[in-house]
């Protein structure tokens, strides 16, 4: 195979962290413990996941960031890219996350509160490490509002305006989560994914609602997304990584094969 082929879209495992546990809810609420970050990340890595995202679900609420020891612990012997989100408020927070093994940070609340922070972060560490995470709530046909604090707070910010502004300010990727679909296993909000993808020229990671491998294939084929982040699908074993990759390959989509262990 040569590098001229279309590169494989990324399959990302999203681990929402609360204290020492990985949790999962529906519509970002009603949270339930599903496991521990270390063993879960390790399993996904061994199964061939392409990236891992850790989101501290309580950092914004309490105004502190205690996810880094969890990231360090979970990053041992896991050799794929890690993104850390939740409670990132300053360039110093980003540097601390990178020193703990993260390659990228995901920002939501702090970026909405002070958009110039995106530019400051990009200038210090490069656009490639700044992911803007957006919790999108449908507010009518073709309209979504950005929420913060795990869907608890309204902002009045229009998602499609916000993604364009974030790119202009220096964001490197957009991670878009449909609050309406999140945790429901009813499939993605395709209109949202397509609208966001059209608005920006940076990579887009789709999240929220996958219940089957077919949903993931759909979002890549129809919506043209660069990456899909999955939580329930993986955590509850509905479609483990090998099954997801097999479904993508069967649809003619490139996947990263799992290499022999070193």
């Amino acid at each position, binding site marked *: 195979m*040569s590098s001229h082929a279309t590169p494989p879209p990324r399959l990302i495992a999203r681990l929402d962290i609360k204290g020492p546990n990985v949790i999962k809810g529906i519509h970002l609420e009603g949270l339930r413990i599903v496991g521990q970050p270390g063993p879960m990340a390790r399993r996904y890595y061994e199964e061939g996941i392409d990236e891992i995202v850790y989101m501290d679900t309580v950092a914004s609420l309490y105004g502190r960031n205690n996810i880094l020891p969890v990231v360090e612990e979970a990053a041992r012997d896991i050799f794929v890219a890690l993104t850390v989100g939740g409670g990132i408020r300053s360039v110093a927070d980003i540097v601390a996350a990178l020193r703990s093994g993260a390659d990228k940070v995901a920002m939501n609340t702090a970026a909405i509160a002070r958009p110039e922070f995106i530019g400051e972060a990009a200038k210090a560490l490069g656009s490639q*490490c700044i992911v803007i995470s957006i919790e999108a709530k449908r507010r009518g046909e073709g309209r979504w509002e950005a929420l913060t604090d795990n869907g608890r707070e309204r902002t009045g910010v229009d998602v499609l305006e916000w993604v364009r502004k974030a790119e202009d300010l220096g964001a490197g990727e957009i991670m878009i989560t449909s609050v309406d679909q999140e945790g429901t296993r009813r499939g993605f909000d395709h209109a949202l994914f397509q609208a966001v993808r059209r608005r920006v020229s940076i*990579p887009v990671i789709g999240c929220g609602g996958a219940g089957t491998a077919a949903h993931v294939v759909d979002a890549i084929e129809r919506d043209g997304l*660069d990456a899909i982040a999955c939580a329930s699908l993986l955590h509850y074993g509905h479609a483990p990584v090998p099954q997801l990759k097999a479904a993508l390959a069967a649809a003619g989509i490139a996947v990263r094969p799992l290499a022999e262990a070193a």
Partner: protein
Amino acid sequence: MIVVVDYGRGNLFSLGQALRHLGAEYKVSSDPAEVLAAKRIVLPGVGAFGDAMRGLAERGLIAALKRVAAKGTPFLGICVGCQVLLSAGEEFGRHDGLGLIAGTVARLPAPRAGDPAAIRIPNVGWRHLDVRPLAPVLSVLNGTDLVYFVHSYAPMAADPANVAATIRVNGADIPVAVHRGSVVGVQFHPEKSGVAGLKLLRRFLETEFAR
């Protein structure tokens, strides 16, 4: 001793994890004397080119890195640690690099309208490399190996003889691994490239470069 150069800009944790996984003993240092005495050098890094050079300059590391390259110490630059091997960088204005390999670090080409194989910038994800025949270290990768990228800029070596591998980005063959003598630079992240990346790091640690 293998020295991982710390200039305040690196993802040292992951690189350290990878080296430890391979059983390599290493020391993290920002001391020019320790850099000069190293048996092998790894220069990691994330961030912008000019900021990285400033981090090296503040610690008096520029002259030390040039000397170790000149005396043939095996030297691996990763990501921004690869970019600064070149003469200059064009991110947020023009900045001088270490000048160990002639060329400029330039922005990746933007997607062309209507291109079904368009790659969005930053280029994020796993890619196959086109490895040049006999390229040191890189030739350990085979046709099925993919490695992980997250970048908007690339090391455009001026002399094709210094290019070790390329990827195809929006219609152009872009250098993503460069080499000259005992100096090797990779734009991708071997410490984030699973088994393929570990294989590449192991090959670097085992390579005896011709003097």
